[in-house]
Structures are given as C-alpha cells and as structure tokens.
C-alpha cells in the first residue's frame, strides 16, 4: 500500500499541471452539480411551504346543525390527510368581510349571503391525492360545494417535475463530463508511464498491482475536485449571507444550504475518480 501511495503521489507531482487543471475542471463540474442540487432542494422546500398554505374550503349547506358540523370535522380528522382543520361560521365570515368591503354595501343586501365553511389544510404527502379527497368530501351530506386552488397546486407539481427531470439530465451530463475528464487525465498519465509499466510487467507485476496507483490518482483528483467545489460553495455562501447582497437580492438570501452535501460530495468525487480511472486503464495485457 505504501509503495502504491508513493507511486501515486509521485505520478501526481510529476504531472502537477495536468493534475491541477483536472482538479479545477472537476471542481467547476461539482460546483454546477451541487448548484443543481441546491436549486432542487430549495424548490422542494418552497413548494412544500406553499402547498401547505393552500387550504380546501368546504362550503356547508344552510341550516346545518352544529352537531352535524362537529361530526363532519371528526370525519375529516379521521381521514388523517389534514394538518389543520378550521371551522368558520357565516357570522365570523361576514365580520371578516366587513373589514375588506365597505359594511354599508353588505347592509344593502339585507341578509348574510355567506355560508358556514370549513378550511382544511392538506398535508404535503397527501397533496397528490387532493382530487380524490375533495371528491369524497363533496359526497358528504351537509357539504354544498368544495373549492381548492387546483391551478396553483398543479403548477407547483409541474414546476417540481420539470426541475427534477432537468436535474436528472444535468446530473448525468455533468457526471459524464467528470468521468471523461478523469478518464483523459489518467489515460495521459498511463501513456507517460508506458516504459515503467512495461518494466513492471516483465518483473511479474499483476494487473491489480499496476492499476492500483492509477486508481489512487483518480480518487485523489476526484477528491481534489470536490474540495475545490466546496471552496467555491463556501465563497457563494459568504456572498449570499453578506449584507450588501441581501439588500440587493432579498429573495435569494432565503436559500437554504444543505450541509449534508459537503459530506456526500467527497465520497461521490472519490468514487467517480476511481471508477473512471478503472475504465481508462482498460484490460492490462502481457
């Protein structure tokens, strides 16, 4: 192991400029990859927040008895799909309306035209079943009508799916670019060491003995790339949290930064580096 490590370090040092350029290229790729992930992560949070704020409004029939209302609320609770259920009587609703519209206009009507309503806030995980849930609510005897912001929820779903698909495509494209960068670098290192490798073969070295230093080199380049990307992300983080930036783009400073990614990234970088080195070396023939 010590011999392989020494050989790998020597190899990287001898090709220091190629190594540095590969690390920077990989760093930029990993930075973009993490950028994709961050956008996706924040869109998830954003849609979650927004959709939990959208309530199903249930309009009740006139003359509904309080016992019937509380029975219906119990039934809604039993469904287990709502995070919050709130009853608003027609008297409360008109009071609220008077705060928005000129009360004299309402008095002109001469009676309270509003219905008793129940606002039910759906849980994020049940969002995809919203149509089925509203249908079952509509079937309840005391329910007059049900309203939910279908267009908003549909648009959010669409944005989420589009971003996920884009992220998957981006992930594969950038991962492929990373594989190719390491592949080309290690292939170049291998060619430079052809004479050395031929000597090793003549002395009875096994393919794994020959491969090992190159796999280490690939892993180190992958790790270096992620460290560089981490550095770029740190700079970005500082920038997003700077005072002048928050005044300039206040919405952007709401971005959340998943710290877990800083642990996963080096593992991913090393794995990609080792994998592409393995492919770069191909089958070692005698």
């Amino acid at each position: 192991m010590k011999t392989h490590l020494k050989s790998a370090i020597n190899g990287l040092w001898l090709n220091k400029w190629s190594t540095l350029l590969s690390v920077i290229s990989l760093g930029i790729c990993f930075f973009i990859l993490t950028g994709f992930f961050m956008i996706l992560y924040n869109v998830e949070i954003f849609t979650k927040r927004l959709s939990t704020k959208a309530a199903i409004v249930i309009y009740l029939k006139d003359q509904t008895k309080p016992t019937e209302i509380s029975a219906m609320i119990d039934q809604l609770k039993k469904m287990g799909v709502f995070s919050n259920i709130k009853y608003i009587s027609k008297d409360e609703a008109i009071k609220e309306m008077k705060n928005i519209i000129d009360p004299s206009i309402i008095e002109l009507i001469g009676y309270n035209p509003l219905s008793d309503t129940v606002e039910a806030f759906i849980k994020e995980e049940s969002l995809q079943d919203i149509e089925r849930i509203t249908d079952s609510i509509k079937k309840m005897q005391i329910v007059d009508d049900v309203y939910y912001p279908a267009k908003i929820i549909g648009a959010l779903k669409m944005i989420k799916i589009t971003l996920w698909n884009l992220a998957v495509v981006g992930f594969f494209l950038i991962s492929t670019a990373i594989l190719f960068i390491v592949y080309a670098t290690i292939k170049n290192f291998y060619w430079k060491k052809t004479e050395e490798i031929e000597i090793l073969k003549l002395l009875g070295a096994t393919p794994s003995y020959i491969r090992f230093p190159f796999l280490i080199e690939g892993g180190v380049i992958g790790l270096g790339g992620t460290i560089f990307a981490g550095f770029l992300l740190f700079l970005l983080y500082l920038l997003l949290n700077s005072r002048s930036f928050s005044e300039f783009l206040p919405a952007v400073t709401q971005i959340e930064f998943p710290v877990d990614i800083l642990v996963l990234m080096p593992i991913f970088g090393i794995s990609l580096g080792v994998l592409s080195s393995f492919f770069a070396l191909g089958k070692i023939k005698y």
Partner: protein
Amino acid sequence: MIIFQGVHKYYSGIPVLQNVSFSIQKGEFVFITGPSGSGKTTLLKLIFGSEFPDEGEIRVANFEVSNIRQKEIPRLRRVVSFVFQDFRLRQDLTVFDNIALPLRIIGEKEKDIRQKVMEVLKEVGIRHKVESIVKTLSGGEQQKVAIARAIITDPQIILADEPTGNLDPEASEDVFALFKRINTRGCTVVIATHNSDFFKNKQYRVLSLKEGKIYENSS
C-alpha cells in the same frame, strides 16, 4: 524445466522458428547462438511468455506456456527472470529501488527488502553504488544492476538476451563470471548471444539457431 516440442513461430507469415524441439534440465547453463535475426530473442520471449507459439508446445517450470492464461503470466515471471541487452532499468531511480522492485511487487516487507538488496549487491560487486541513480552508472554497472534485479527473487530460470552486447570486454567477463556464479547455486541459466568467445573451447551446452531451425552441439 524447459521443454519445446515441435514449436513453430511466424511473423507476418514468415517462419522465424520451425519445428523447434529441445529440453533444458534444472541447473543447466545453456547458450543459444546464431546470427542476427536467427530467432534467438524470439526463443527467449517464448520461454518468458511475452510471445506465444503458432504451433507446438512449450512447458516452463510447471507452466504450459503455449496455452498460458493472461493471469498466470505474472506468476511465470516470478520464477523466470529476464536480463535484457538494454537493461530495462528505471533510469530515474536509485540502484536500491531498481533492485527492490521485484520484491515490492511480491509484497515483501521493507526491512527484508533492504537486507536482501544489500546481499545481492555484495554478490554482484556494486554495493558502494546502492544510492546512485541508475542513469549515472556505466554500462557494465547497469548490467550488474539488471542481473541483481533478476536474481533477487531467487528465480528458477534466468534468461539473458545478449547481456554483454553493450559492454567492453572486461565488463563482459565480469558479467559472464556472475552468471556462472548464479548457475552454481542451482539456477538454470539460458544466454542468447552471437559472441562465441564465451563458450569457445569450453564445455557448455550450445543450441544453435540457423534459418529458424535448432541444432544442438557442445562447445
């Protein structure tokens, strides 16, 4: 130890070896001679598993070289060492690191490696050059390093292709004496050379190659 049975080898359809059959026993010292292009190097490469016959069978130290699998070749090369005319040394490394290379390949401990390298350097007579970079050595010294590297793993067979081809007469005598010493320890030595001075008027087994055919004669 080495058995050739009806071996044919062609390069681009041109026969280099034709129906070559011979055997070499353990501990023998054999010269393979013949003019340039007669197939001496090809014959050594066939023993070493870096070339394969088009017809016939080759057996070397329990290895069926004519049908050897790729993964068995490293194992073959741990019992058969090759000394090249152009040395094939790592010019950028020290004498120590060059000789230690085969031991590192088989995973020997560093402490044992140092001891073995020093012993073998003493045997070939260049102990004082242990820390020298190979490219600073003379041809004769480099050939001694190559021989030291070949014998460090205690192989059963040593093959040498024109080992004195690039050396002056004095250095050649030294190298030849070294091979004889190695042979006395029971190691089979096969030397390909066109220089008949080494075996002229001496009792050695000589295999002559002429137009791809082998002839046996004692010197």
